[in-house]
């Protein structure tokens, strides 16, 4: 392995082909805009300047590692030239951080504070550009803020392969634009360009002016919308920055979803459906236990279910593929021997969505089918006509297709028409209200954390199953 010297320290460069990668991996920070670990090297921002002894200053992202080379990342020459580069990059930048959603997590802002910190030297008026160019129904482009690093262009060419974006015209007229016959709506991964944009040029339309990022914090979670199980961050307001609002849900809403980088599952990317987790998780919740459509207490619903289990002989369970590993095990331990269990899909592909592709999206639209099938087998549900009790866990089951003679116990989380049609309905918590793990289709287990309070009247499935199995006189929270 080549050994190089960075700021006088010997560094084993390992597998890293360039000075920038070797420096970053060994704790020497070199600023960079256009370089991205998952994209090709273009070297157009010129801000990752380093000095090589005997060779002068050059960009680290395109400097191959040579054994014994001596690199300075913070010499006086490097500092001066980097500062000059930042003057160029900011030449036409409007510095409108006060109204920019990126403020607080903007690389340009950070580098300006760290490496430049001076007002513009140029007295030329700044160029005006399009402030709100709609790249798609999801993304806005602010051309004044764009520094033409081309990360978004390379993303659509090298990662999502939709080839939608390009840089048109030249010089200070150059603009990021979609092809004439395309929009970024054609790209199911388009929102990743918002994350990789080092400035505030590409903005999420759903998050536009919703919140300052420093009032938010992310909770690690797992996207439940397909069997890939991408790790994500759910962003919501920090507890110490609660809004004074009549509707408490304003303080717990998921304001945006971003990828949580995970080389074993999704790398730094997620698909657009994963960004819209709110549309699944934040559907109106069912918060009331019901018996034949009439409201009962949780305890009464549990008693009724236990009675149904005791009275019946041919019991079938349709197990949720949205349940966590812990819940599946709790069901197996408490009730596994009393039910013939089948795993059913809770969600099926919707019309118009990309069903499966080579990058991330999987055809199975459920997060935990693999773990459920490991416990309960992978045969398709086979419901005998003489079944007398059917436990439906999670959505996706049409009650009209179930045998007429069977009693139905429904465990669900959202306010679906079926809740009123079951003999007993018990509302369950969802993944933003409890801890748990999902096992993706490749067997990789990822954890999710709670970020929202569990509504009154809702029970965790892990707590529920032992209560249902108890021989009578159930205790515990209901």
């Amino acid at each position, binding site marked *: 392995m080549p050994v190089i010297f960075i700021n006088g320290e010997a560094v084993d460069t390992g597998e890293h082909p360039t000075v920038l990668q070797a420096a970053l991996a060994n704790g020497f920070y070199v600023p960079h805009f256009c370089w991205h670990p998952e994209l090709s090297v273009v070297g157009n921002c010129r801000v990752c300047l380093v000095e090589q002894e005997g060779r002068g200053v050059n960009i680290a992202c395109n400097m191959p590692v040579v054994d014994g080379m001596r690199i300075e990342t913070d010499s006086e020459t490097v500092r001066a030239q980097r500062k000059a580069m930042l003057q160029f990059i900011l030449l036409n930048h409007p510095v409108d951080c006060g109204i920019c959603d990126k403020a607080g997590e903007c690389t340009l802002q950070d580098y300006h504070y760290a490496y430049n910190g001076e007002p513009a030297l140029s007295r030329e008026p700044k160029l005006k550009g399009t402030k709100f160019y709609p790249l798609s129904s999801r993304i806005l482009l602010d051309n004044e803020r764009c520094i033409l690093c081309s990360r978004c262009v390379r993303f659509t060419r090298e990662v999502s392969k939709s*080839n939608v*974006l*390009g840089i*048109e015209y030249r010089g200070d007229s150059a603009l990021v634009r979609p092809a004439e016959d*395309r929009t970024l709506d054609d790209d199911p991964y388009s929102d990743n360009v918002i994350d990789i944009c080092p400035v505030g040029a590409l903005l999420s339309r759903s998050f536009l002016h919703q919140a300052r990022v420093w009032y938010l914090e992310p909770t690690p979670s797992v996207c439940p919308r397909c069997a890939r199980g991408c790790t994500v961050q759910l962003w919501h307001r920090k507890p110490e920055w609660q809004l004074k609002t009549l509707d408490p849900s304003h303080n717990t809403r998921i304001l945006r979803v971003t990828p949580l980088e995970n080389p074993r599952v999704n790398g730094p990317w997620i698909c657009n459906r994963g960004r819209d987790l709110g549309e699944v998780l934040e559907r109106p919740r069912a918060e009331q236990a019901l018996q034949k459509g009439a409201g009962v207490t949780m305890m009464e619903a549990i008693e009724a279910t236990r009675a149904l289990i005791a009275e019946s002989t041919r019991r079938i369970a349709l197990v949720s593929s949205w349940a966590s590993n812990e819940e599946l095990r709790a069901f197996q331990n408490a009730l596994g021997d009393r039910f013939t269990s089948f795993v059913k899909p809770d969600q099926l592909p919707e019309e118009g969505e990309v069903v499966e592709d080579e990058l991330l999206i999987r055809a199975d639209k459920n997060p935990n089918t693999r773990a459920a099938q490991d416990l309960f087998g992978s045969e398709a549900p086979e419901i005998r006509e003489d079944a007398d009790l059917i436990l439906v866990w999670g959505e996706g089951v049409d009650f009209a297709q179930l045998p007429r003679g069977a009693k139905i116990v429904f465990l669900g989380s959202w306010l679906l028409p079926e809740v009123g049609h079951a003999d007993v309905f018990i509302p369950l918590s969802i993944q933003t209200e409890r801890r748990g793990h999902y096992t993706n289709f490749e067997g990789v287990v990822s954890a999710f954390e709670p970020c929202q309070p569990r509504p009154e009247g809702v029970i965790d499935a892990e707590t529920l199953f032992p209560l249902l199995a108890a021989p009578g006189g159930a205790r515990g929270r209901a």
Partner: protein
Amino acid sequence: MKHLIPEFERLKTRLPPGHDATLLLPCLRRIQEDQGYIADGDIEGLVEYLGVPRIQIEEVLSFYGMLRRAPIGRWHLQVCHNVSCSMRGAERLLDHLSGRLGIQPGETTPDRRFTLSTVECLGACGTAPVVMVNEAYHENLDPAGLDALLERLD
């Protein structure tokens, strides 16, 4: 563009395999030479023929000012207005042409005979001011010389 494909095929033999995209610029220039501009249909044809995404063709077309996406007049008058030509009276030539043809730079006469443009340095500063008519340079021009030139263009 279809009838030019045999020509493009000969160009391809000069490149290592897998480098078809490199032919984009020569193809665009040849198409413009052939019909005066690059039509939308030609772009689609090249997407198919070279296997280049459409956005990359649009990038090239918008980058190079000399590549046109709409037809122009029979005679293309390109007046250099860079430093040397301006100092030697290029603006006067431009005003004269605008007045005589009744069009502004960037426009075409209604009879489709003339298109007037301004260009940056044509590399003939020693013989400024210069006007390029289609592919030919006309140097050391003054309004009288320009009039004589226009007389020769049908």
